[in-house]
């Protein structure tokens, strides 16, 4: 095996995404579009969390906008965003050379392995909301966490078989690294040489400002609590009706509504636990039902 080489840097944030898309498409992944609901992480897209369950093989990759209301900083922090992108890849079962495939994807976006220090540092991932955990690493590039790499072991509280390999790239952070930019809003969104050059700030700064105000000041807690209860009963009803996919959607909705309530600081730690338990119950319930139905369909 000869020493690996890197391609030239991408021209922009979107170019970086396009390279990842092309690369993972070439590895046989279905390139999906973002899930059309508010989620806190790419993992929560049913294409990952639900497809990791059941006996069928699966490969997919997609960009997922992620909303974390409490992380918003009114556009004033160069590193923190309430809305950002994750690039998500799932390969089920994981191919034996997944680490190599992953490293090649970094070379694809211009990270030279002969110049940069790439490390796999223990980090066991878990998402109690969907009853999922796996073993893997944070991948560090010169001390910066650029991806999360996980072999799923359980989802929805159930052992998975076959095992999926899951990769999550924090796109903004990765891009800031590749482009040597200190402020996320300075990232070139499209090619700086194009007719209308746009920065990340041109696209998202105002959104961060307004969404932060909403998240921290303006969200109507009472209404959100009503919504939460509504989503909860809808999800339960759908589960009763044997429809795990929409039941899962409403679990996601409840989860996001909870995140909004939480960002408003309207919940004490004990209440918080109770909310999390309720969301977990919905998400797990849907996941378990989906797994059961997948087994039945495969049989």
């Amino acid at each position, binding site marked *: 095996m000869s020493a690996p080489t890197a391609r030239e840097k991408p021209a922009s944030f979107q170019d970086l995404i396009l390279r990842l898309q092309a690369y993972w498409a070439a590895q046989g992944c279905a390139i999906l579009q973002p899930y059309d609901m508010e989620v806190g992480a790419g993992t929560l897209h049913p294409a990952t969390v639900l497809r990791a369950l059941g006996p069928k093989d699966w490969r997919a990759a997609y960009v997922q906008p992620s909303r974390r209301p409490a992380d918003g900083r009114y556009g004033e922090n160069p590193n923190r965003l309430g809305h950002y992108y994750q690039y998500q890849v799932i390969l089920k079962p994981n191919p034996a050379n997944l680490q190599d495939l992953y490293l090649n994807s970094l070379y694809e976006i211009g990270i030279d392995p002969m110049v940069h220090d790439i490390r796999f540092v223990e980090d066991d991932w878990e998402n109690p909301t969907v009853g999922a955990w796996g*073993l893997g690493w944070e991948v560090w590039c010169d*001390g910066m966490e650029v991806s999360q790499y996980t072999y799923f072991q359980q989802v929805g509280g159930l052992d998975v078989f076959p095992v999926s390999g899951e990769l999550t790239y924090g796109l903004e952070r990765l891009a800031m690294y590749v482009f040597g930019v*200190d402020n996320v809003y300075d990232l070139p969104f499209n090619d700086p040489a194009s007719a209308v050059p746009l920065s990340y700030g041109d696209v998202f700064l105002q959104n961060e400002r307004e969404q932060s105000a909403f998240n921290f000041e303006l969200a109507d807690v009472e209404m959100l609590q009503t919504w939460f209860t509504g989503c909860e009963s809808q999800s339960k009803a759908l589960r009763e009706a044997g429809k795990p996919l929409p039941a899962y959607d409403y679990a996601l909705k409840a989860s996001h509504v909870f995140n909004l309530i939480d960002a408003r600081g309207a919940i004490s730690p004990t209440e918080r636990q109770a909310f999390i338990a309720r969301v977990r119950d919905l998400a797990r319930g849907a996941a378990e039902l989906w797994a059961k139905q997948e087994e039945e369909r495969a049989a």
Partner: protein
Amino acid sequence: MAELLLELFSEEIPARMQAKAESDLRDALTRGLTEAGVEFGEVTALSGPRRLAIAIDGLPEKSADVSEEKKGPKVGAPEQAVQGFLRGAGLTSIDQAEVRSDPKKGDFYVAVREIPGRPLEDIIAELVPQIVRGFHWPKSMRWGRGELRWVRPLQRIVCVFNGKTVEFEIDGLKSGNETEGHRVQGRGPFTVSSLDEYRTKLQQEGSVVLSREDRRLLIEEQAHKVCAEAGLELVEDKGLLEEVTGLAEWPVVILGDMDPAFLDLPGEVIQLSMRTHQKYFAVRDPKTGNLAPHFVVVANIEAKDGGKAIAAGNRKVLSARLDDARFFWDNDRNTPLEKMAGKLSTIDFKKELGTIADKVERVAALARELAPKVGADPDLAEKAARLAKADLVSEMVFEFPELQGVMGRYYALEAGKRAGVIPDAKRSGTQSAAEESGARTSSDELSGMTGFVDRLDEASVRAIADAIAMHYKPQGPSDEVPTEPVSIAVALADKLDTLVGFWAIDEKPTGSKDPFALRRAALGVVRIILENEVRLNLQDDILKTFNILISIPFADYISSRSSETALSDVEHLIRRHEFKFKLVHDFLSNENGQFDVMELAKAVHLSDVPQNYDYVRQLPIDISAANHPDEAWAFIHRNHPGEPKKYFLEDNEGAQLNLAGRTEVQRTDLLAFFADRLKQYLRDAGARYDLIDAVFALGEDDLVLIVKRVEALGAFLETEDGANLQAGYKRAVNILRAEEKKDGAEFAGTPDTSLFEQDEEKALYAAIEASSAEADAALKAEDFERAMAALAALRAPVDAFFEHIQVNAEKPELRQNRLLILNSIRDALQRVADFSKLAA
């Protein structure tokens, strides 16, 4: 002689697991060989981020032949016995058995089976898969479609014996003689046939330093070197060194730099930020001893650009981390400690023992009581206790829990600076950058910042600040012990409250299990007391702690807080009730139920946050309809007729015990627990710990006096007089016991001097009276040497008594009187120790 080389090559193994896995693999392999009857020579064990390897030399090519004998029946035994023997031994005819002679038993049959040795390849091919399948990792996983579990996917198995591959397959993975090197700097693959070749190829072509020890030394040496070259000094960190040794196959140490402006942050914060998040070593300036604006990172590659990009990248990441830390630091400094303390009611200390706020309340009360005994101002001790845990809700401690106390100290000093009580060099100039940039603080809040400092002088503020940091100490046998009075008061109060609390709910350490570190807390109390010579009567203070634990009524806290913080969580209040009821139930036999239900009703009424009603609605009792305490009370009565308090109590009914008795039992038990810690402490200090029981048995609970007494006693027993007197005591007690048993009565009381017949009786009794008086006076003055010396005077008269007096005299009244003299000896010696508890 042949060599075995085994390498298990996987994806990255967590650094913290490598060393243990290396030794486990070594043990499993050598044990397996020993069990197969194979002797071996030198064992080499290696481990790193992607591999575990063991090489064993001095191995035979096959295991030794073994001859196994099986005894059979006598020659001429019945046919049935012979047939049974043949079957059991696997023989077809009795001719195959040997005949041996025994001088007593005569001739008998023996089946001799020669078991030829097995080729080592076969033994290894069986052993290794068995070890791999049964290997224990702290956490293991499956991958792909496989069933095998390993810490991360297992990629290759090299298994070479005597230069040749030992063939086997584990879950589809075939053994071979090919391994890989560093992922980008010499990947290979490399064919290996011996340890030598393995080492040479991987080290020279594969860029892998195989041995942990080599990597550790290499990193240490390089780190010191890069620092020295820049005129700096490495801040050593053994734990971190071990970790980074497990993170690089080809360690390259790089010195990076950071913005010196970050050095405003407390050194502890910078160092932890580097260590926890980035695994960097901190660097100090040898001239000042302070941190320098640099860090040491261990990379896993010799970069083409000499490490420039790596240093720059790491610098950027560290800046982002320290920016976060600065954000926490600025926010925390702009939040008064009192305000932080107010939030402690949302964190459980232990479910049955209430929240941290509850604990703080108890510790404050106890610290106040203890203060005069340790020479501290009670007001300061109480103030310090009330602030001691506040930093638990600070942003910095949330990020770095290790900094509890340390940050609180900084924040208290900060308040002192802002109040102008503590001089602040920096503040005389410009404000800090963060304040200018408008961290989220209003001027109103800032004016409230100096709250607790009110009318305190610099020394007092510093005493409070130090107590906040020191009250967690000592954390173990070698940790530093608080020495300042206020710190001592709070540290003792905190630990006593914890211990008494856990004893009260009967969650004591058992065997090796001590999840709440109660042994450490008790040892801490012992060390603080002894090393500061604090005079406490531990029994009283334990009792006091118990009383505080069960007496502080929660209603006081409610009224002391705003409705927003205390009442925003009715569920929380309910838990308080449970807590209170459990304790009240367990320790007192009063019927306080009504009071608490009323308080709950009041709390519900006072809470004006709508969602609280939702909570109450979910509770098993529905009192949410009430909008006035009286209505709530009436509502409870209506829906739970009879005894409403019963409702709350019933969960705990099963746990009902003999309450007063239990408190007593727990107190005694806790005292014994302290005695054990004291023994441990003295043993570790190389002092006599075997005498503790004899002194403790007297009911002494002042640890300082116990230790003094033990020292004096130890010295005394080593003198001839002491040893003789101990023997005399024994003789007296043995006689007494025997006679008491015979008579079924106890000989207590003073002898009648008019019945003395012989001089030795008179002399002994006079000596006992004189020595006892002298000893009492000495004990009163805590002069244990003198007390022992006074008793030493008894030796001669005791010896004379036993030599000349017949205790069991004919006349019963004479016998009785002489036994009472023996009893007086016992009583006299009992003043300094319970001699019956001394080892012979």
